[in-house]
């Protein structure tokens, strides 16, 4: 390694953005449209759904028939590169705690993976402490963010319906798709016991909104990224691509950020990174640095940016960087709907995801847990994939096939009949709730472990809160009622109890982590001010899930987008005023 040296990029940028997902993509989009010179650093390769295609592939086009690998944990056709584990980039856990950390490495980041669920936070979601005395209020409220939610709705496109619900605000919606057959059955069963079911709110274009993107072609494969029409939102096609087309953005791929560089005045001056292809060290310099590497990666970068001036890590005089880490809670249940056995075949792929969902309907004052959850649903025909017909004995040993009770398992023509009979009858649901953000749940730098690039890695220390477990219990009770009321038979997730936290997923598993770089008015208890700007370092910003004080029972992407847009406009403003 005698030839190791730091290569400095001579260009001085207006902004250096680390990460190209929802937050970074939006910042690159807004700043480049305003004429600022942007350098966008991404730890993975270039990616464009039009060139990197898995959409409309048949199951036999994957030699493993769509089964998952460590490269694609959600199956061989999923668009996202990497997931729970990346070769050469470990993370560790304190004691026997659990945390599952999803990391996407590609242009567009995790927006290549998510379910396009695009929910606004409601007015209550920004002010939870004022309501239940737990956690903290945000330094901003719904009225501060609403104009940006509106702009994001128009820019990116989202379908849904205006229901006039107090904490699930109306938006500027495209028309939602009609419910599928099993969804009509779920709706009937759930509303019959007082649980609301309304159209989903997904960032998928059921109508064309501009000339660079088309209309949904209803293949149900948003998780593969839309190569045909760019009709689903992913940061790569909807934000990074138009940002690059302005000519104001230099994208550096395969660049793993090492540190935020600072000068004697304590200002951020740029980013040092290692190029994963040539393993050389590089630096890029800029007027502002915007972190959007994901809640935990951004915290890791700050904690690893130690200097004489910032011995506790950059922007960490409060000592809360990495703290308040929380994910959505999650618990699931699945089964079969005998009413759907032997059903007529037709194409019900629809959009990628459920056409309906249940927003939180409960009154937490009357419950033994303080925060709510929403319910997502699935079922029906799906493209056959690896696992098709698995454990058929659990079905054909239990349910009659065309009036005939068979022995469990079997083979031959009789088995082929069973496969046709049971296909398309599955149904299931998942709760996604708000976990309480507490200071004790955190990620920090492991003092002994580095990754293959020599960058100190994160050690996670997160335990589910008692309230999260009570919420999971409530989810399970609710799911059982809905399943029972629709005549469905539970085949998994029905036997959970206090011994396994009622099936509550390990934290991190729902892939909605937030809170590690939180905003607030008090620099002693928060990292950022209400403009996503570091209290300690005015030209440093963070625009991913890190700034979230709490994350509501809503998927956080739409709020990341709105806050990143808001912070980017603030940066432009402050530059005009010469404050930055």
């Amino acid at each position: 390694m005698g030839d190791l040296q730091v290569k400095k990029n001579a260009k001085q940028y207006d902004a250096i953005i680390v990460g190209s997902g929802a937050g970074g993509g939006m910042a690159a989009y807004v700043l480049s449209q305003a004429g600022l010179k942007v350098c966008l650093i991404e730890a993975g390769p270039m990616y464009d759904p039009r060139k990197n295609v898995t959409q409309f592939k048949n199951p036999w086009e994957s030699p493993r028939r769509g089964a998952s690998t460590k490269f694609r944990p959600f199956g061989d056709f999923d668009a996202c590169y990497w997931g729970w584990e990346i070769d050469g980039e470990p993370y560790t856990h304190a004691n026997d705690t659990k945390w599952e950390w999803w990391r996407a490495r590609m242009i567009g980041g995790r927006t290549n993976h998510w379910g396009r669920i695009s929910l606004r936070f409601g007015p209550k979601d920004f002010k939870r402490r004022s309501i239940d005395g737990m956690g903290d209020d945000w330094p901003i409220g719904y009225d501060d963010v609403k104009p940006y939610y509106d702009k994001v709705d128009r820019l990116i496109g989202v379908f849904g319906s205006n229901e006039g619900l107090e904490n699930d605000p109306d938006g500027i919606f495209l028309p939602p798709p009609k419910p599928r057959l099993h969804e009509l059955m779920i709706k009937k069963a759930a509303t019959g016991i007082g649980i609301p079911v309304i159209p989903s709110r997904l960032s998928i274009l059921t109508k064309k909104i501009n000339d660079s993107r088309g209309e949904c072609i209803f293949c149900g494969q948003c998780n593969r990224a839309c190569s045909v029409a760019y009709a689903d939102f992913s940061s790569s096609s909807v934000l990074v691509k138009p940002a690059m087309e302005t000519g104001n953005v230099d994208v550096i791929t395969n660049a793993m950020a090492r540190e935020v560089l600072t000068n004697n005045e304590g200002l951020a001056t740029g980013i040092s990174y290692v190029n994963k292809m040539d393993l050389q060290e590089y630096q890029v310099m800029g007027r502002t640095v915007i972190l959007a590497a994901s809640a935990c990666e951004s915290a890791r970068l700050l904690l690893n940016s130690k200097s004489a001036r910032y011995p506790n890590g950059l922007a960490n005089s409060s000592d809360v960087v990495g703290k308040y880490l929380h994910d959505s809670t999650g618990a699931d249940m699945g089964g079969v709907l005998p009413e759907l056995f032997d059903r007529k075949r037709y194409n019900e792929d629809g959009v990628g995801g459920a056409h309906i969902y249940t927003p939180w309907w409960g009154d937490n004052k009357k419950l033994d847990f303080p925060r709510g959850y929403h319910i997502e649903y699935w079922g029906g025909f799906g493209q056959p994939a690896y696992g098709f017909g698995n454990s058929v004995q659990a079905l054909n040993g239990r349910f009659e096939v065309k009036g005939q009770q068979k022995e469990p398992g079997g083979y031959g023509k009789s088995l082929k009949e069973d496969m046709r009979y049971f296909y398309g009858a599955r149904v299931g649901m998942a709760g996604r709730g708000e976990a309480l953000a507490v200071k004790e749940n955190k990620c920090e730098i492991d003092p002994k472990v580095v990754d293959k690039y020599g960058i100190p890695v994160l050690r996670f220390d997160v335990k589910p809160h008692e309230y999260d477990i009570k919420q999971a219990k409530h989810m399970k009770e609710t799911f059982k009622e809905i399943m029972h009321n629709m005549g469905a038979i539970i085949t998994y997730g029905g036997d959970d109890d206090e011994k396994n936290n009622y099936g509550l997923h390990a934290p991190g598993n729902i892939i909605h982590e937030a809170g590690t770089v939180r905003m607030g008015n008090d620099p002693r208890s928060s990292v950022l001010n209400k403009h996503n700007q570091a209290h300690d370092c005015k030209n440093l910003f963070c625009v991913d899930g890190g700034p979230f004080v709490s994350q509501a029972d809503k998927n956080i992407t739409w709020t990341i987008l709105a806050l990143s847009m808001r912070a980017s406009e603030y940066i432009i403003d402050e530059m005009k005023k010469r404050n930055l």
Partner: protein
Amino acid sequence: MDRRKSLKAIAVGTLSASVLLDACKTDNKKEAAKGAESAGEFTLDRAVEEQEREKEITSKTFFTPHEMATITVLADIIIPKDEISGSASDAKVPDFIEYIVKDMPEKQIPMRGGLRWLDVQSLKRFNKSFIECDPAQQINIVDDIAYPQIVYKENGKEVTKGKKTKPEMAQGIAFFSLMRDLTTSGFYTSQIGVKDVGYAGNTPNKWNGVPDDVLKQYGLAYTEKEMKECAKY
């Protein structure tokens, strides 16, 4: 493939299995030396690391010719040709099983050992290997391992279904269940199987809701609100 080579294949596979299985461990075990042979042609997007892994998989052979012949007979017993579609071997299910045990090395020992269990059972009963038996003899063994007893909860009570199985058949039953799972996975994800089961999607279209005759069949209808607010094409 000789025995030494196949043992090596297991060793390599097991190493990568620890990476696959323990998703949260921090060990950073490198996959063993990569095969030099060219990978299969992919029509779908692959990252660089995946291409390397595919090369490694396709450069190796796991099952012996005798094992592959046994897998083929079993797969065709599980999914034979009928009036609607072809058989498992028509759909190249044995090739899929060869691939998948290299991709999921934790299935290698259960498959290899299960096939051997079957042959030993066949030797005991008929003094020849399973594939040398005539179809009636093969079914004689299969009928003893094809029907696992199942236990599930209904209204809080445990229910048992299926005939009591012979204790000495337990390992054979476990093997046959795995073989059946792999066979249905392979068959119903093939062109023949997808057509058989009648999956009608994976094609550009416009969703206008559940067909009217189906709504009628289930006594369902869209509400006025849905008719008004939902997308129409």
